[in-house]
C-alpha cells in the first residue's frame, strides 16, 4: 500500500531498495576502517624492523605484504557485500 508524504511516494519495494543502498554504504564505509588501520600498523612495524635490520629488507617486505593481504580480506568481504546489496539483492 503506497504511503504519500508531502512530495514523496513511498512503496514497499522502494523502501527495500533504499535500505539496500544505505546498507551498501555502511558496509563498505565501516568495513574500510579496520583494514586501513591494520595494514598501517603492519607497514609501520615493517619500517621499524627494516630500520633496525636493513639487510633483511626483502624478507620483511614480503612478510608485511602477506600480513596486509590477510588484513585486507575483511575489506574485500565488505566490498563483496556492498556489491551484492547494490546489484544482486
Amino acid at each position, binding site marked *: 500500500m503506497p504511503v504519500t508524504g508531502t512530495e514523496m511516494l513511498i*512503496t514497499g519495494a522502494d523502501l527495500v531498495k*533504499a535500505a539496500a543502498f544505505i546498507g*551498501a*554504504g555502511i558496509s*563498505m564505509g565501516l568495513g574500510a576502517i579496520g583494514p*586501513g588501520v591494520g595494514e598501517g600498523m603492519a607497514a609501520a612495524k615493517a619500517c621499524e624492523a627494516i630500520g*633496525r635490520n636493513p639487510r633483511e629488507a626483502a624478507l620483511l617486505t614480503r612478510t*608485511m605484504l602477506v600480513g596486509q593481504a590477510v588484513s585486507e580480506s575483511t575489506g574485500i568481504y565488505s*566490498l563483496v557485500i556492498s556489491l551484492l546489496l547494490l546489484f544482486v539483492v
Partner: protein
Amino acid sequence: MFEIDPQSLVKMAAYTGGGLAIGFGAIGAALGEGYAAAQADMAISENPKMAGEITRNMLVGQAVAESAGIFALVVAILLLFFNVANPNLANAASLLGAGLCMGLGALGSGIGSGMPAAETCRAVARQPRLSNRLLTVMLIGSAVCQTPAILSMVISLMLIFLNYGDASAIKAAALLGAGLCMGFGGIGSGAGSGHPAGETCKGIARQPGAQSLLTTNMLIGAAVCQTPAIFAMVVSLMLMFVNFGDVPLNPTWAAFMGAALSTGLAAIGSGYGGGMVAGASCEGIARQPRAVGNVTTTMLVGQAVAQTPCIFGLLISFVLMFKMFPETAALSPSMALLSAGICMGFGAIGPGLGNGMTAEGAVRWIARNEEDTGLLMRIMLVGQAVSQSTAIYAMVISLVLIFVI
C-alpha cells in the same frame, strides 16, 4: 500527523544544538586537561623541587586547552538565548548545525592542546633551566591545535547570525550539512596537531640546541595537518553560500547531507594520521638533528599520502554538490546519495590513520638509520598504497551509488 509552528521548531533546534555544543565540546577539553594534570603529577614526582614551575606550566597549558571548551560554552549560551526574527525551517536547521559544528569541532582541539601541556611538564622536570623556553614553544604549539576549534566557531557563528534569505527545505539541508561537515572535519586535525607540539616540547628538553629546527618542523608539520580541517571548511562555506539554483528537493537534500558527511568524516582519519607523522618527525629530529633534511622530506611525503583519503572525500562531496539529480518521488534515489557520502566518509577514516601510522614508523627510523632513507621511503610508500586500497573500494562504491544506481 501533528503540526509544529516555526517558532517552536526553531526553539527546539536551538536548545538541542546548545546541548550538543557544550556536551561534545566539553569532552575534548576535559580529556586534554586531565592528561596534562596526570603528566604534571608524574613530573613533580620525578623532580619535586620544580613543583612550582611545573604547576605554572600545567595551568597555562590547561588554560589554552580550555579555550576550546569555552568557545563551545559561548555558542551554547548564544543558542539558548538567541531570538530569530523570522522563524522558518532553514533557521532551525542552521541553529542545530551551529551547535553540532561547535561541539564536534572543539573535541579534537581540546585533546590536542593537552599533549604539549603534558609534555612540557615532563620536560621541565628533566631540564628545569629551560622552563621559560618550553612555555613559549608550548603556547605556539597549542595555539596551532586550537585552529580547528576556531574555524568551527567561525562557521557556527555564521550559521547563527547570518541571514541567508532563503527559507527553502533545500537550504535547511545545506545549512545543517555545513555545520556537520566542519564539526566532524575539525576532530582529526585538532587532536593530530597535538603530536608535533608535544614531541617538540619533549625534544627541546632532550636536545636544547635543536630548538629552532624543532619549532620550524613542528610548524610545517602542524600546518599540513590542518589541511583536512580546511577542506571541511571549504565544503561548509560552499554549502552555505553557493546558489545551487532551482534544484528539486528530493533527492538534492540527501546529496547535500552526503556531501557534508563525505568530507567531514574523511577529514578525521587524514587529520589525525598527518599529526602522527609530524609527531614522529619532531621526535626524530630531537634524537638526530643532522637528519633533519631527510626526516622533513619523508614527513611531507608521508603526510601528503595520508591526505589522499580526505581528497577522495572532497571529490565525492563536489560531485554530490554539483551534479544535477533528476527529481524523483521515490525514497531510494535519495538514500543512494546519502549512502555514497557515508560510505566515502567512514571509508576514508581507516586508510587516513593507517597511512599516518606507516609514515610515522618510516620517519622515526629514518632519524635513527639515515643511510637507509631510500629503502625506508620505498617500503613506506608500498605499505601506504596497500592501506589506501580500502579507501579506493569505498570511493568505487560511492561512485557506483551516485552514477550507476
